[in-house]
């Protein structure tokens, strides 16, 4: 493959371009449920992911944003099958994962993940090339072929094999380590790459390099990304569509530009206005939200955002809003978006 070549018309595309590469329906995962060791701790179930639906089209980047505890990383691990969902279906290219048509092993080869901590996700005892060659070797590649592939990939991610292949993780910088992690993820020729805060720990000047690299790789390898981050600037730059999560639920979902231009959910509005202003003459004067993100143990009734919401009404604590359409593919789970909800502010408007 040559850099700049059009996406490979993969023979692996089974469902055709109209079928989403990944489809997630009704994903649920709760943790715990036991009381604390001395019976004093809060008992209750952590509703980490509580009924999440989304899909990612082929060649698309879906950005997932939200505060800590919103369930974005758990969603990634559920899709990855590192943890098992309590309920829900995951369809890959139209086929259910774990079904006869698509075994778990076959699925995993097509979905890979890059973690936030570039150091913890590399085995300190393996050289860079050994790490990248590990996957192909596991899948039966000959030692020489696996190494050749590793060198090719290292070259692709901007690490000259001659200089870097024999190094250990502690001898290279954070940005270089994350490049190794990306090369490792690509070593099995995946179609979907899950990037879980993959650039969050990097220095800003290095972050930009890695984001550019990810764009290049996406084009060259015909990849689809699920891009998880807490940085809204980065998610806007990277994503075609964005999913905003709050306490295990989807708050808003839609194409990037409308989400940034006309956010529908008050939570999205608050997230956007929490970004530093970058204008010394117009600094932020009032925090859009007070308090910390609440604990996903025993989330609030009705709309989970209602205790922090400026538009709250009694309806919000009673009825849980469903995702309603705001525009082309743009959905938000807020009573204000649904004209039939009966939210008092709708009548006032």
């Amino acid at each position: 493959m040559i850099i700049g070549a059009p996406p490979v018309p993969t023979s692996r595309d089974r469902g055709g371009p109209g079928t989403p590469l990944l489809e997630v329906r009704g994903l649920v995962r709760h943790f715990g449920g036991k009381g604390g060791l001395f019976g004093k701790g809060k008992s209750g179930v952590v509703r980490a992911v509580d009924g999440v639906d989304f899909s990612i089209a082929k060649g698309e980047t879906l950005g997932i944003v939200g505060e800590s505890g919103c369930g974005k990383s758990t969603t990634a691990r559920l899709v990855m099958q590192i943890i098992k969902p309590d309920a829900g279906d995951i369809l890959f290219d139209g086929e259910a994962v774990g079904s006869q048509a698509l075994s778990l092993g076959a699925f995993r080869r097509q979905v890979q993940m890059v973690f936030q901590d570039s150091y913890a996700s590399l085995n300190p005892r393996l050289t860079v090339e050994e790490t990248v060659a590990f996957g192909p070797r596991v899948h039966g590649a000959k030692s020489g072929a696996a190494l050749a592939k590793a060198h090719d990939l290292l070259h692709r991610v901007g690490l000259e094999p001659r200089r870097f292949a024999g190094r250990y993780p502690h001898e290279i910088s954070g940005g270089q380590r994350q490049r190794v992690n990306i090369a490792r993820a690509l070593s099995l020729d995946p179609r979907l790459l899950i990037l879980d805060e993959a650039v969050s720990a990097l220095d800003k000047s290095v972050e930009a390099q890695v984001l550019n690299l990810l764009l290049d790789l996406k084009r060259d390898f015909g990849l689809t990304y699920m891009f998880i981050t807490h940085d809204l600037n980065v998610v806007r730059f990277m994503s075609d569509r964005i999913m905003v999560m709050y306490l295990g639920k989807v708050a808003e979902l839609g194409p990037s530009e409308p989400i940034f231009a006309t956010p529908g959910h008050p939570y999205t509005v608050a997230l956007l206005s929490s970004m530093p202003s970058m204008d010394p003459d117009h600094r932020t004067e009032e925090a859009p939200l007070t308090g910390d993100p609440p604990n996903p143990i025993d989330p609030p009734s009705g709309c989970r955002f209602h205790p922090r919401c400026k538009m709250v009404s009694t309806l919000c604590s009673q009825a849980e809003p469903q995702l309603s359409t705001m525009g082309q593919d743009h959905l938000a789970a807020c009573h204000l978006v649904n004209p039939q909800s009966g939210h008092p502010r709708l009548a006032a408007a």
Partner: protein
Amino acid sequence: MSTTADTIVEASGLTVDFASGKGLIRAVSGVDLSLKPGETLALLGESGSGKSVSLRALMRLHPSSAKIGGSVRVDGRDVLAMSPRELSAYRGKTISMIFQDPGLAFDPVYRIGDQIAESVMRHERVSRSEARRRALELFERVRIPSPERRLDNYPHEMSGGMRQRAMIALALACRPKVLLADEPTTALDATVQIQVLLLLRELQREFGLAIVFVTHDIGVAVEIADRIAVMYAGRIVESGSCRDVIRNAAHPYTQGLLASRAHGTLAPDQRLRAIPGAPPDLAAPPPGCAFGPRCDSFAEACARAVPENVRVGVAHEARCLLAAAAMAPA
């Protein structure tokens, strides 16, 4: 820089050396800082730029193996000449610090209120109940909800943002004149980060605090700082008012940082203007300007000597030959 009556922090020619396997590493090489009461200076830089090391030098928080050179005067006293006893009185009373990880500030096995009261009693001759009252008052000041009850919490019983507020309360317990902040909002969600920044701004006005705020995030620096000093490889490469540094960045590194930010104005599929390469290894820094190897405008002269600090505007300085050439009389 001359010591004037109204500066509270004055560091000049500050150097910090660490011994390492590869020999002596100069983490900070010749940093000059001055700060007035009620002023906030942001030290902006990447990992390894020496920003945190410089900050800790103001409090002499280094392992004894580190060698600090130059001079540091805070509130009219020579910090580097202090005896251990003077130093412990100085820390907390004159100058105080908050960290990225509140775990560094709190002992996990004591109640937070007791720890704050303890700190008050160590520095001032007050009764336990008076110290306790002060702790409560501080909790109200940093806007911890139901402060009375929260004083009896252990650190792990608080959420991240609340722990950060409690740490600020602890740092302010003895009414210091200078607050050092080492990336205190980096680990927080954006929604909580902005709350903490606003709180710091408010406390600063109220107490007339001087704050040195270390961060790697330009956006955060803009929100908090009056002045910004950009650090690279152990030196301040540009300093000036927040407005000057953001709007008229003079050093190519600052310009690069500003240009490489992913932000909304980009068209889809446009690439970021990233700074190439990686920060230098401090054990073997490049000759001359440390940013040279990554700089678009690199010229041979850049590798000859470390560029001098030149004035590029009112209280706006940069260490770059280009800036010097632009300012030179024609």
